[in-house]
């Protein structure tokens, strides 16, 4: 985790995404016009969030298996970082929706379920602060986290696909990937997803290491 090459890779990838994403060719579409470039920046926020929540769930399971406090710390910090990316995704999505859908918050199933899942993860963080005893807190919040993750997946990626949604790839027949995503967009989009996932993991690992240092310092005193 402490190796530097993947951090440099993340920075280089995202610098390339910023240049190619703003200057490169994009498909010409009505209503969207140049805002199609938001695909490179808005969608990867959600991928980074999803990846961080996944890390969190894995470490929650690991915690329940072993009872090591480091795993609990990793689970919290992953959610802390994931929530930041979630809010970035919501904010950029609202800006984009205001221009293309005419309303920052049209009652789209994907938007409403993303709001519910955001509240669910905020509840996780509040729950942790409400419990004083450390072991109890770690155990209860790990169990909560394991339940919250599949509900988040259902809310964000399954329910909107069953109904009509303004988001591409949702509602109707969503199995034709070539209709939802142009091949011109793909390479830059994937580079951006990998870049933001790496940046998210980096920030998460920094917070984790800082929290471990704080814990150690508190024990010495």
């Amino acid at each position, binding site marked *: 985790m402490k190796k530097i090459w993947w951090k440099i890779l993340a*920075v280089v990838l995202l610098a390339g995404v910023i*240049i190619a994403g*703003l*200057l490169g060719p994009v498909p010409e579409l*009505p209503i969207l*016009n*140049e805002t199609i470039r938001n695909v490179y920046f808005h969608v990867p926020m959600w991928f980074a969030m999803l990846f961080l929540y996944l890390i969190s769930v894995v470490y929650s399971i690991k915690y329940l298996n072993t009872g090591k406090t480091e795993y609990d710390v990793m689970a919290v910090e992953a959610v802390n970082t994931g929530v930041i990316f979630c809010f970035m995704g919501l904010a950029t999505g609202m800006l984009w929706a205001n221009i293309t859908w005419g309303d920052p918050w049209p009652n789209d199933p994907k938007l409403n379920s993303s709001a519910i899942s955001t509240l669910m993860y905020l509840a996780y963080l509040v729950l942790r602060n409400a419990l004083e005893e450390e072991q109890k807190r770690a155990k209860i919040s790990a169990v909560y986290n394991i339940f919250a993750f599949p509900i988040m997946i259902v809310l964000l990626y399954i329910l909107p696909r069953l109904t009509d949604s303004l988001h591409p790839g949702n509602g109707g027949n969503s199995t034709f990937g070539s209709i939802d995503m142009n091949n011109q967009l793909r390479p830059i989009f994937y580079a951006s997803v990998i870049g933001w996932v790496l940046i998210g993991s980096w920030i998460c690992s*920094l917070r984790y290491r800082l929290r471990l*240092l704080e814990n150690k310092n508190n024990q010495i005193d």
Partner: protein
Amino acid sequence: MKKFFLACLFAWATCLQTFAQSDIEMATGLRSSGKIYVVVLVILVIFIGLAIFLFGLDRRITKLEKNQDTK
């Protein structure tokens, strides 16, 4: 012959123009004027600044961790 050549050239030019015209308006003018590069540079500067900040933070935490271990 010269007239024919000119006519061909004209036809080619009009062809190009009709192909270049598309129904959907993109900000091609913005990019061709060159000013979009300024925006790209501004975003790059902000992003690289943040990246350097993150690298610095990483180094400081690593230093603290090393100090902890030697204690």
